[in-house]
């Protein structure tokens, strides 16, 4: 039975799941395509409409979902590590809210180039993260206090974003849709900068796992081992904000994936074992985030919600409920 919990088995299962969902994704939509046909057209573009839709609409949309999900999950895991708070999530620490405001600001004020949008998101996310972590520091990043501080920051920035939306009526519809979070209409243009960013940030995070692992120890112990905890926390936070901001710039503020994915993986890897090596947990978390987000987008397309079906809504529904269940367990485990 224990073999089922082997990291490689889990990784293989998740990857297989992603491939299956990807294929399903290619098949679904207004233009009905059979699986065999989709498979055929994926490799030979015969110039038909169906092939066009497949290559230019469905495939990039699905890939965007995969990478956004991985980014959000990694971002959440990094926050959980650097704050040692199991409730960490880019949405619940205000990072997503700040990034949302930054992105919305440049979209309404300028006709921005892609890099401007992403940098504005990163900047907004950094500001929000700084506020939240400064507020939460007094309480030593304690569980609920950090999250509630983050919620306050998040509400503030989302209210400011709503104000922007209302002041700039012409972009109201598109901003509103983006604020719900989803992947409809996301194409190769977004994917072209999304994947290098996320792969780079992900690899960087993987490279510093040894240091990050030390952050999970008591601060005094880590410092005794010669780890500059402040510096590595800052680097971890920077990577986390970068990942979250990239995700927001593509898909809008999608909450809870960053919280849920690491916890599902901790459970899958045998919850009893106290310390799971980050070098294992990290890639698995990314895969888990990818499959959750892709699954939500798939469900959004499959459900009869119209052609603008928002994946963000389904993620919030699923993520919020999981949060309520998991947060209870996580906190009671800590207090006992």
């Amino acid at each position, binding site marked *: 039975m224990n073999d089922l919990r082997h990291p490689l088995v889990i990784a293989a299962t998740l990857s297989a799941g992603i491939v299956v969902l990807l294929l399903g994704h290619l098949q679904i939509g207004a233009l009905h395509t059979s699986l065999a046909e989709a498979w055929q057209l994926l490799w030979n573009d015969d110039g038909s409409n169906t092939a066009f839709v497949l290559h230019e609409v469905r495939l990039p949309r699905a890939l965007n979902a995969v990478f956004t999900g991985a980014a959000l999950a990694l971002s959440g895991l990094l926050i959980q590590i650097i704050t040692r708070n199991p409730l960490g999530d880019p949405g619940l620490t205000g990072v997503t809210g700040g990034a949302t405001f930054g992105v919305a600001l440049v979209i309404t004020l300028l006709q921005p180039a892609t890099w401007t949008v992403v940098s504005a998101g990163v900047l907004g996310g950094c500001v929000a993260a700084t506020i939240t972590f400064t507020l939460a520091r007094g309480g030593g990043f304690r569980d*609920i206090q950090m999250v509630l501080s983050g919620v306050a920051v998040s509400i503030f920035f989302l209210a400011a974003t709503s*104000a922007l939306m209302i002041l700039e009526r012409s972009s109201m519809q598109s901003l509103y*849709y983006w604020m719900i979070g989803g992947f409809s209409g996301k194409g190769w243009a977004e994917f072209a900068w999304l994947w290098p960013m996320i792969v780079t940030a992900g690899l960087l995070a993987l490279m510093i796992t040894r240091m990050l692992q030390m952050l999970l120890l008591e601060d005094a112990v880590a410092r005794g081992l010669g780890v500059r905890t402040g510096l590595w926390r800052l680097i971890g936070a920077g990577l986390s904000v970068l990942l979250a901001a990239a995700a927001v710039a593509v898909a809008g503020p999608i909450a809870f994936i960053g919280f849920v994915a690491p916890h599902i993986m901790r459970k899958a890897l045998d919850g009893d074992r106290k310390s799971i090596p980050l070098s294992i947990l990290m890639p698995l978390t990314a895969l888990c985030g990818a499959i959750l987000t892709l699954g939500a987008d798939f469900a959004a397309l499959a459900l009869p919600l119209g052609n603008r079906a928002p994946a963000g809504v389904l993620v919030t529904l699923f993520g919020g409920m999981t949060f309520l269940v998991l947060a209870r367990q996580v906190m009671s485990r800590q207090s006992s």
Partner: protein
Amino acid sequence: MSGTVLKWAAWPLLLLVLSIVSLRMGVTGASWADVWYSLGHAPQGQAGIIADYRLPRISAAIVVGIHFALAGLIMQIVLRNPLADPTIFGISGGASLTIVSAMAVSLALVPTDQTVSASTDYIPLGILPYIALVGGLSATLLVLALSWERGPGRGFSPQRMTLTGVIIGAILNAIVMALVLSMSEASTELAILWLAGSLYARDFSHLLPTLPWTLIGLVAIVVLSRSLSALRLDVHSAQSLGVNLRLARPLLIVVAASLAASGVAIAGPVGFVGLLVPYIAKVIGVRQMSYQIWVCCFIGAALVVASDTLGRIIAAPVEVPVGIITSLIGAPLFALILNRNLRS
């Protein structure tokens, strides 16, 4: 004696002054003479705008402010949680969900071509508060049920309750957003404005259906003020004062939910008023229960009137909805109270 009179009279005076200032402010300029004239004569010209638009709107702001402030006060005392607020606790989220659903249903059943200025105009205004109450009360019960802790330390932990409320709020909000998307483009815009918490184009026809709710709410809180006062003490002291906790607490929560829900029915979810006002009253140093209720009513009304006026003039001719202004003020204060609360 005159000190006591002044203490009680100062708050209505503050509100009166603010309202008169607010009558003058707006996209269309008006002079003090216009304001004065419109209050005593048949309105015409600039004075017409004041009497036809601004006066009803300010009345709506006052009512909404009283509703949310009292709802917040009751919740904070009954739940022993200084972070309690109708918005944060899902009451507004639940009320919004049922109202937006009703909006979507009425749009689907009776498609109209007529233009409306507030999205709730699609629904008969008299039943709006009831629709809101169903959603608001269910959401509150859900939050309370989910944050109840079993075992030896049974009871509610304020922070955990707040967190649960926030998450439930996020879930409800996601559903509302999906519903709004399913509407036609024109109604989407109205729904977005409504969801931000707006007093745009509110007049006496929106206000009258909620009048009984206001009256019943005020009477209930006055009748129950002794219990409310006792609930500020610990459970045993409250019981020894002869308060029936099993009856008083649920009753008070229902009163709070009704006030908040009918407030939502008028203006949409105006955030943080219920959080801000009791806190301000506490900072001012108000202790006596009856005076606390009195002060909260007027500060609540003044806060909403002031925020609405600010929203009207800050980016004129475009309006910033009042709910956005109160959220921008309220969120930092929420963080402040959170930090204070932990330190003590």
